[in-house]
């Protein structure tokens, strides 16, 4: 084992797409699997992952995404104009969800519950909560508190901070 083992991480999630939300959840859950303390701090569109009415609707964007190939490995790049067609985003999201389920990566609502059961602590960013007009009751029950940036740094004290 390398010296200076990581003991604590605080991860900021600012994007509300599949690739914006999952890395934070996987890293936080993975931290707990290694016995590392983990905080998740959601801000801007990342809030969608913990808003009850939206957490089940996290999608992958097929527009303006130069990494969008079909099939994902070795396929042809999906032109933005094609990505705009009705149903394309839903199809791509369904496709990735199916792949993830095979790897036992759960849908967002279940993943949030799993992370919380594993001991990950969930926080929402006060500035963006106010900006979007959310209330505490709009969030899933795993969210411990709506906190400002100063409190975030207090919670993150003594650990690593990762922003995604």
């Amino acid at each position, binding site marked *: 084992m390398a010296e200076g083992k990581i003991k604590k991480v605080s991860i900021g999630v600012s994007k509300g797409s599949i690739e914006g939300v999952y890395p934070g959840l*996987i890293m936080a*859950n*993975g931290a*707990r*699997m*290694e*016995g590392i303390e983990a905080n998740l701090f959601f801000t801007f569109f990342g809030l969608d992952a913990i808003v009850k009415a939206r957490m089940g609707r996290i999608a992958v964007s097929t527009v303006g995404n130069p990494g969008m190939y079909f099939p994902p490995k070795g396929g042809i790049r999906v032109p933005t104009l094609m990505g705009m067609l009705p149903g394309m985003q839903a199809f791509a999201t369904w496709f990735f969800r199916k792949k993830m389920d095979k*790897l*036992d*990566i*759960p849908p967002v609502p*279940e993943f949030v519950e*799993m992370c919380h*059961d*594993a*001991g990950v602590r969930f926080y929402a960013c006060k500035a963006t909560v106010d900006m979007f007009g959310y209330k505490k009751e709009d969030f899933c029950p795993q969210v411990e508190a709506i906190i400002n940036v100063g409190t975030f740094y207090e919670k993150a004290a003594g650990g690593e901070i990762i922003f995604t």
Partner: protein
Amino acid sequence: MATKSIGGRTVNVDEEGFMTDPAEWSKEVGEAIAKEEGIALTDRHWNVITFMQAETKKNGEPPTIRAMNKSGVVTTKELYELFPGGPAKKAAKIAGLKKPAGCV
């Protein structure tokens, strides 16, 4: 490959102490590894260990935490309580299985 003397026998292990031959595992070896990890095994622990061994035999890989939760054998919360500080890894080690390779 390294060997390790534990629970009254010598077993093959990888560099992180995971056993490489499930046939060398016995309940006594499991007890001894658990003791090294600071865990006193109860019936609840044994339920998890037995389930993990059976699943690994079936699939070639230790089950994920999600799969264990879904199976009804142990909830995620309880798994973390039973094997504090790295449940999937510690339980696999005690069960004489290889280190879980997945990210979740």
